[in-house]
């Protein structure tokens, strides 16, 4: 179960502004999905190691060889707002 307040909290963590309609709909919708998810608690998982990754690899290393990186202008080419050779963002504290 996830209630309206939790939905608002999670939306804030997710950096998502929800519309009133979404805020109305999401608690029920997400609860239904989470109820299904919780069926995995029926399994006996005592002593089972978690799988974080299916490939058994550790410390994949390579030679540290210098090579050209992306030119600044190409890195900035897709940005919505650019100034002084950087990404421009609104002030964190408001305008």
């Amino acid at each position, binding site marked *: 179960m996830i209630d309206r307040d939790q939905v608002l909290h999670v939306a804030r963590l997710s950096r998502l502004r929800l519309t009133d309609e979404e805020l109305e709909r999401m608690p029920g919708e997400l609860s239904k999905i989470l109820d299904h*998810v919780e069926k995995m608690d029926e399994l006996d998982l005592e002593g089972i190691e978690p799988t974080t990754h299916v490939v058994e690899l550790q410390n994949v290393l390579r030679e540290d060889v210098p090579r050209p990186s992306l030119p600044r202008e190409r890195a900035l080419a897709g940005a919505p707002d650019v100034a002084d050779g950087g*990404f421009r963002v609104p002030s964190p504290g408001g305008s």
Partner: protein
Amino acid sequence: MSDLLGLTAATQAELIASGEVSGAEVFEFWRGRAAEDDLGAYLWVEEETPADPGRLPPVAVKDLFCVEGVPSSAGSRILEGYLPVYTATSVRNLQEAGAAVLGKTNQDEFAMGSSNENSGFGPVQNPWDRGRVPGGSSGGSAAAVAAGTAPWAIGTDTGGSIRQPASLCGIVGLKPTYGAVSRYGMIAFASSLDQCGPLTRDVTDAALMLRALEGRDPCDSTSLGLPEAVTLPSAERLDGLRFGAWGLAEEGLDPGVAEVCRRTLDRIEELGGGVQEIELPSAGHGISAYYVVAPAEASANLARYDGVRYGYRSPHYDDLLGMYENTRAEGFGEEVKRRIMIGTYALSSGYYEAYYGTAQKVRSKIAQDFAAAFEQVDFVVTPTSPTVAFELGERTADPLAMYLSDYFTVPMPLAGIPAVSIPCGLSEGLPVGFQIAGPAFSESRILDAAYALERTIGFEGVPVP
């Protein structure tokens, strides 16, 4: 030249090699076909014939593969107009093998969906019945191959996104072993599950394409390639091979689909293979585990869409936080928001162990189930999708019903193992897919078995104009 329409990619490659047609003629033919697509399968089609189109027919590429200078949006409005500065390794491998990029195909936004209805750029129609979905998330790739607007295509599979649309469109779709193909340049959904693979007319084409795709890539440290070169399939019989059938008694499996799959089991026996029912006691919980692991990883991967470095930025904001929140609220579609919410919740303080920790243990249980099964049998076989293609709009109001479309395809990526879907017949006039899964790195053996079955099934694709 219209003769090319009926030919597999492998046969077209032979014609190019023998000089009967040029690579440019083949490219031009398919470019014309792709430009005529009216199913919504393409988001972009190449306009220029490359100077040297290569020795293989051109390939349709799912939108989420970065191709330098070509619009690559992963089906999302938040990346509309984004032009990558580099090309995905998988696409580069195909180009180097001689397959040029034909176009970018429609998909569910960020590969989240099973019907292609979550695309930010409109749905795709199934060429078998335009009122039905092609499956998803690689719906555009599957529809294009089935409708003959592409000779072959690549897609990605996280929980079934290659195999399920292949099944619903009556074509072949292969999800390789995790790590067989580089993920570099694939716009990420769930990094521990995502894998690139072929959607093709037949099994031989899938093997031919996998041969070009696989390989270790220094740019993806989780990539391994395949330990042995992919062999082209040639088996005519299945003598001595043991097939473990799973899921044919599941509730929710359409009776028509079950019947066609049972007939396919009979064909396996006719070819000399052994069939037995097997249990995968935890695999039925795959959907539960998947809808924790995949959204959790997605919530982290999609944090990068913040309106700063690329893509959409909302014009409505007073400060930085407002810019983030409105950009993401306006740029993402409903399903993507839903999954970000589930994933963030599952990873949030106090819930992490109950959801993510548990789901990771379920992954281990499912992998153990498969390992135990492969001690008794060579392959696990199942229906690919519980139903044939459903109607557009039929499941959009019920996310959970949509998720259950992937019931049979989700366990394999959770265990990292390869599986192919091949068309095995029709139910209600619509294609049914048959799934063959094997242990990690058994692609050549899976494709060999699929090839023998394909020959005896003799499935005829959708009649294309």
